């Protein structure tokens, strides 16, 4: 069976990719996707761990977090749409009226 390290490696890679995306991307939607990457990397961890544990808490946890991620995406997109309505763009670099 696949050793745990590989899962963790995968998860960490995903996490890193997500972070990289967060640093580099301007587009709101892409940022949302990066965030999803982060969350799901965590989910992979959870599931993988729980596979090596007697209990299933990890998978339960993963289910919860998936649901929450969905809700979060909902809220996020709502905000982005509203933004788009007002600003006509979702390029987040231009949205920095409040600073310093």
């Amino acid at each position, binding site marked *: 069976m696949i050793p745990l390290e590989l899962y*963790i490696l995968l*998860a960490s890679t995903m*996490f890193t990719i*997500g972070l990289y995306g*967060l640093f580099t991307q301007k587009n*709101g939607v892409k*940022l949302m996707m990066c*965030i999803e990457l*982060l*969350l799901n*990397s*965590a*989910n992979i*961890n*959870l599931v*993988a*761990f*729980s596979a*090596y*544990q*007697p*209990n299933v*808490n*990890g998978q*339960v*946890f993963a289910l*919860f*977090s998936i649901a*929450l991620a969905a*809700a*979060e995406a909902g*809220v*996020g997109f*709502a*905000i*982005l749409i*509203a*933004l788009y309505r*007002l*600003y006509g763009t979702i390029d*987040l670099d231009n*949205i*920095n*009226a*409040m*600073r*310093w």
Partner: protein
Amino acid sequence: MEFSHYAPLWGEALLTILAVLVVLLGSLMKNSGKLMGYLSAAGLVAALALVASNLTIKPTLFFFDTISVDALSQFFKVVFLVVSLLVVIASMSKYTGKGADEYFALLLFATVGMMVVSSSVDIITLFVGFELASLSTYALAAFDRSRKNLEAAMKYFIFGSVASAFMLFGFSLLYGMAGSTHLVDIAAASLANFGPATLVALLFVIVGFGFKMALVPFHMWAPDTYEGAPPLVSALLAAGSKKMGFVAAFRVILIALVALRMEWYMAFAILAALTMTLGNLAACWQNNVRRILAYSSIAQAGYIAIAFVVVGAAYGAMPVNVLNMGPIRADQLGIAGALLLILGHALMKTGAFIGTALVSSNVSKESETDPDDISNYAGLAKRAPITAFCMLIFMFALAGIPPTAGYIGKFVLFSSAIYSGLVWLAVLAILNSALSLVYYLRIISYMYLKEAAGPKIKEQKGYVVALVLTLLAVVWIGVFPEAFINWAMQAAAVLLPQ
């Protein structure tokens, strides 16, 4: 397992039901804003009563030991409920028309989320509650859909999601290490086998909570959001969800990650020092009052974070008789101080933000200047005497001038720092609170020493009631701290191995 067994949780239950009810009713009946307001206010009062009914309850566990009702949770629940109540009261004179139901419902959900966090001893429930609170507040931050609102909400959302993602990742590592999601098990495991993964987990968790607590450098969202969100929501964020971060951090870091004491001692020493200094420095130059308050609450978070350092430093110190109530340790004193400051700060900040809400709501819509600009506060003493006076007291309280809640909190907290030998930190904190006077006095002198900048302001009932209540609470705690200190002590005891 009969119904009354869950009595300690009726508060949460009530609010959840109420929230749903509010949404339903709101969608059924037109312009029911006022009613919703009264409903949620009543619900909060009831919940407060329920929580208060067993204030210093012995720790009792529910739902497969994932929820623990104890003095600590009750303390924070009271804080959250009081804050929400004040916000609701204030909101009742602002959100009356369409959409009010959603507003109040979200507010109630957020409250429930915080309450859940405050009493969860299992990382799953903790995460769920955390997200519940966050999601509702994301929505609230955008509620008025003005440009600023949306920018604020956007930043808050992105930063928050990232942070919670970090936290989740950290949790996953913890689970992997411990094989359990119960904090106690995690504590045991981390004491047993201690790997670098645990350190990563710790830091990721700190990121998650630090985001809520707005510790530098996880604070970046806070100024923008507090400035941009609807003022009353800012109140909720600064006073409520920020404190949620603290309670979560207390439970997870102090209990679960006790093995990494030295690490988080280091981490929080740095974070606390950074936070209070940068917060105060940045606040000096702001012209937007809400931004000033935002930075000030960042600084306050820095003070509160001292508690972690104190605990780390005084960990395992032999029980010595610090106070005249049985053997109590410096770390307990520290946490108690933090709790007092949390309570005080929750009140002061709620009050202050409600005050800004009142002022900005009276700035004519077509005026070019930013409604929260400090110039709108010139001569407030004449234009809105009650508000000005309350704000005055809140400013002095935040600056830690006796006899106010803010003073008592700082008093106990800093004294604990001295007691556990962290003189450098105490000195830094004190220099900071001196520095903070620069901007507090600036606001005060605008309100009281400048000539009036505009016509008299109409002080709506809701705002005034909320302000005065807060004022009374702040002063009351300052003058008769005894009860609160004892309470905080008991709450703190929960976190520490007896």
